[in-house]
């Protein structure tokens, strides 16, 4: 899949895990998902599950730098790298 379609899939997923009392926002690619209030810190782990189920990405052997799960741009980079 292209980065654009990955982007679309990721935003659709983020919409399902965003905090229910936070309105959907037009998030910049480099904006921090937790600091922006869109998701809570535990939801980062849901992103890991999403990457595993949707893109077959496993971090079990290498681990993942948590900092790479906090912006749309860095998550897309992870998909490019591991997907």
């Amino acid at each position, binding site marked *: 899949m292209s980065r654009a379609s990955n982007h679309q899939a990721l935003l659709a997923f983020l*919409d399902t895990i965003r905090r*229910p009392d936070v309105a959907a926002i037009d998030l910049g690619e480099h904006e921090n998902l937790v600091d922006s209030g869109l998701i809570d810190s535990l939801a980062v*782990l849901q992103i890991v599950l999403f990457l595993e189920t949707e893109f077959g990405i496993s971090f079990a052997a290498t681990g993942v730098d948590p900092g790479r799960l906090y912006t749309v741009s860095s998550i897309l980079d992870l998909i490019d790298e591991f997907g």
Partner: protein
Amino acid sequence: MFVNLDVGVLHEPLSGRRWEPARLRLEVERRAAHYRQQQLAPGDRVFIGYGNCLEFFADLLSVWQLGATAVPVDARLTPFEIETLVRVARPRLFLHQGELEPSLAPIFEACNVSPLDTDAVPQSEAQVPVSSFTLDDDALILFTSGTTGDPKGVVHTHRSLRARWIALQQALGLESYRRTLCLLPTHFGHGLICNCLYPWLSGQELFILPPFSPQVIMRLGALIDEHEITFMSSVPSVWRLALKTARAPQKGSLKRIACGSAPLTAHLWEQIQAWGGTSEVLNTYGITETGSWVAGTTGGPFEAEDGLIGEPWGAVVAIMKSDDTAIPPGYGEPCATGETGFVWLNTPALMKGYLNRDDLTARAVSQGWFMTGDLGYLDAQGRLHLRGRTREEINKGGMKVYPADIDAVVERFAATRDMCCFGFDDPLYGQNVGVALVLEDTSADTLRELHAWMKHHLAAHQLPVKWYLLDAIPRTSRGKINRDSVAEACAAHEPVDLANMLGAGR
């Protein structure tokens, strides 16, 4: 004096701070002197409203030095929940770090509680305080449920805690605990009594981390290597995440791992063994009322098996056909080897009772035996196997959520006609919280008001994440609610689209 200050070095790996025992002693003395100036006296209760940091342990020991009772509380509780606990436990002091939630001030004033910022304890008051308490004085109160209604506070004395630590030392030794990591909350029996205090009060080094933090879990292998951790405990949901996101430790420092507070499957057990590079992974069985860890596989080589716990530590296990406290072990009918029944425990580490709730204590304790509410059996080797639970709780990632606490809040919402909350399977947490609702009206405004009502009264981890609007809550032929049946009925419906419904109102 039997508050042992021959403790190990305390570390905060994330901040890089560490306190040697000499520094810890100074901190304890300084705080004890200050709290005594604030009129803290033997028998008083002190809420410690923060945790998982160096200062928490200094405060805990200083409270004990003054003969007072420590009540560590979950920092995530809402002001409403704190008020509920304060009104029951009537603490003298509420220790906090940094700014206090403004809405707590009038509550504390009404209940004659003095809030104290532990970071603001003066530097100049160091003096050696005098302990003035006995082994049978209350040491610790841990609230396990009822934060929204009728709090259930487990009261441990210095004697019962000491009994637990002595039993653990006999069963587990200390060698594996030389450098212990804790990433469990310190208001939680498993985290505080066993993961932290057992090794640390015996002079072992303790590395304390924020609880249930994704950033920590993802770095777990690296942290273990960096600090040459020999022991850690956790819960299955943390392991499921660590196995997905954290590289395995590479230096081979881990000697033993404990996993508790939720059922551990044989598959996950074996994965943890492989990840940690040690066969010594113990599926620990613990209950706050018994001082937490009370059994595990320490009787020699074993094969991982669903439900296997192992041998009791400082406790006698009896499997009975009844859970009636009128006929405890010795009076009622025991189960045969391999036969599943109710798990009863007898241990010198048993709690003194539930705070101000003799009725609850009488329903759980009889003739020195504690009725656990768990189902299990003993095999021919005397090892305990668990098969299920009879008590109501939702295990959300190792955090216990009590349905009755949520019911007590949602039932009081003006538009609620009927309701029932329940646990459902969740790939991330193991279980999560759902709620079935019958409302006077189901308009978006009403749902938004209900959400605000829940957020005001319930801590974030207690909030139902799936809401189902029903015409009626299913009941048994006797008119009772079975939460599992309600969960099944809800599974056939679409949950409310909370994200869009709540977001649209902003």
